[in-house]
């Protein structure tokens, strides 16, 4: 029985409120009863340190499940469609463009549903089965929709996906294909999120980013683990991350620090940089204005995957950006598509809008001297460009010819770039 799986993980101690440290049992809850603070999984790191080593990780599967000693679920029952261990690519062409020497791209668009969300949903759906839920649900700005629908299909669960009504067609199709009940909410993400928070209170569903959020968010730590492992067991000098809710940003940092505490890497001197688009930049704005909390905004950005106006983890993301010596960047809207195009032109990687924000933020950080030529930087490319084809329309202009050599010579020859 699935129930036998619950609490079979000795390294998982409890849930703990990030704000007031009150402890809760390992259940599908996400909010502190006392202060409404977010709950986070608490581990017995001594137990973890006895079982984990570079060698044990390297001998694990070539997926995020190689790190299950540091996840709130075990690989034995994993809902696994191959998330994780995406390429970390040394990107000399982009480095040359920006006057840097050591630029790495963590290409998470290589995940099974082409975004980093497969990491979090793989963990959340596995935990949902442990808790014996039959329905897997999410509220999504797009990438999560596909990841939830796919993992729900794999797990044999009913799936329910809520998206804002104005989402790009690539993301709608990319979720619908797996057969979920797809609900388009007339409103923006924050409105859909509020609706789902209320719905989730009344129904016994595993809402991956609501009642399963303490487990779900832990999946993003694996981005930090992989970066460190793939760099040869060390942390980079800088990480540039697109930020929506701020959850992934905080968990990449947590992942690196857990590795350091366990002695798997020497230390973490990584400066964490927030990248947001001008049309939805509550976290970057709060950073630049010196505030500890973000003021909510109504999003108006082409980077719909980042269009969260009321980010749940803004407070923690801001704290980490400051404590790590990082910064925050507001990328003008027109630089989103430019960043996508530059990455494709220089490195052969087609990213969606969030990646365009990251690349343009990296360019600005290099230009402003925040990232120095001799320092290493990892930029997170979190989703695939085929999801947001609309943005590239201005760059698409095929030459139409007759099927003759003469027509080719007259129209194309000499234009080959």
């Amino acid at each position, binding site marked *: 029985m699935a129930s036998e799986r619950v609490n079979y993980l000795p390294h998982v101690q409890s849930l703990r409120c990030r*704000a007031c440290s009150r402890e809760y049992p390992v259940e599908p*809850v*996400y*909010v*502190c*009863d*006392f*202060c*409404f*603070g*977010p709950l986070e999984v608490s581990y017995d790191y001594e137990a973890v340190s006895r079982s984990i080593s570079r060698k044990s990780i390297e001998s694990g599967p070539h997926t995020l499940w190689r790190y299950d000693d540091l996840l709130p679920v075990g690989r034995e029952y994993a809902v696994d469609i191959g998330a994780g261990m995406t390429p970390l690519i040394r990107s000399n062409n982009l480095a040359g463009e920006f006057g840097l020497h050591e630029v790495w791209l963590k290409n998470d668009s290589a995940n099974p549903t082409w975004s980093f969300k497969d990491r979090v949903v793989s963990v959340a759906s596995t935990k949902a089965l442990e808790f014996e839920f039959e329905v897997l649900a999410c*509220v999504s700005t797009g990438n999560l929709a596909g990841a939830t629908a796919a993992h729900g299909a794999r797990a044999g669960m009913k799936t329910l996906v809520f998206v804002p009504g104005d989402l790009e067609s690539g993301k709608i199709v990319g979720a619908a294909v797996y057969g979920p009940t797809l609900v388009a909410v007339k409103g923006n*993400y*924050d*409105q859909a*999120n*509020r609706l*789902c*928070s*209320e719905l*989730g*209170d*009344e129904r016994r569903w595993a*809402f991956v*980013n*609501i009642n399963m*959020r303490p487990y779900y968010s832990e999946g993003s730590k694996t981005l930090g683990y992989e970066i460190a492992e793939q760099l040869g067991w060390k942390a980079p000098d800088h990480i540039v991350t697109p930020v*929506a*809710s*701020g*959850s992934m940003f905080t968990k990449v940092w947590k992942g690196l620090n857990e590795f350091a505490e366990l002695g798997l890497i020497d230390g973490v001197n990584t400066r964490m940089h927030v990248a947001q688009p001008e049309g939805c930049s509550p976290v970057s704005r709060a950073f630049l204005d010196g505030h500890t*909390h973000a*003021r*909510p905004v109504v999003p108006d950005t082409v980077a719909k995957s980042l269009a*969260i106006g*009321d*980010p*749940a*983890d803004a*407070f923690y993301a801001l704290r980490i950006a400051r404590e790590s010596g990082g910064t925050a960047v507001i990328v003008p809207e027109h630089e989103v598509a430019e960043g996508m195009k530059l990455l494709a032109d220089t490195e052969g990687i087609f990213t969606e809008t969030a990646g365009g924000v990251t690349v343009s933020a990296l360019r600005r950080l290099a230009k402003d001297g925040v990232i120095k030529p001799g320092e290493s930087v990892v930029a997170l490319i979190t989703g695939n460009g085929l999801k947001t084809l609309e943005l590239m329309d201005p760059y698409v202009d095929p030459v139409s010819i007759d099927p003759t050599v003469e027509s080719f010579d007259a129209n194309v020859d000499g234009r080959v770039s």
Partner: protein
Amino acid sequence: MAVKVKIPTPLRRLTGNQSSVSADGDKLSAVIESLDLQFPGTKERMCEANGELRHFVNIYLNGEDVRYLDGLNSAVSEGDEVSIVPAVAGG
């Protein structure tokens, strides 16, 4: 004046497991006082010691985030609906 208040799971232990209750007041702060009178402890959960709304609590008045209105000073009318929603979901 009476308004309907939707209670989230973290507060239901205080409301006898009721998910929706009635409260009185001409502005939101008064509604919270009215809630606390009926269900002692609710204000402490929602507000900091200085009376400000806790950062991890969102309140919606007829679906509108009160931070876009007048915060706890927002005026409420007979029959309005107030929703208390945890702020740490999503993303």
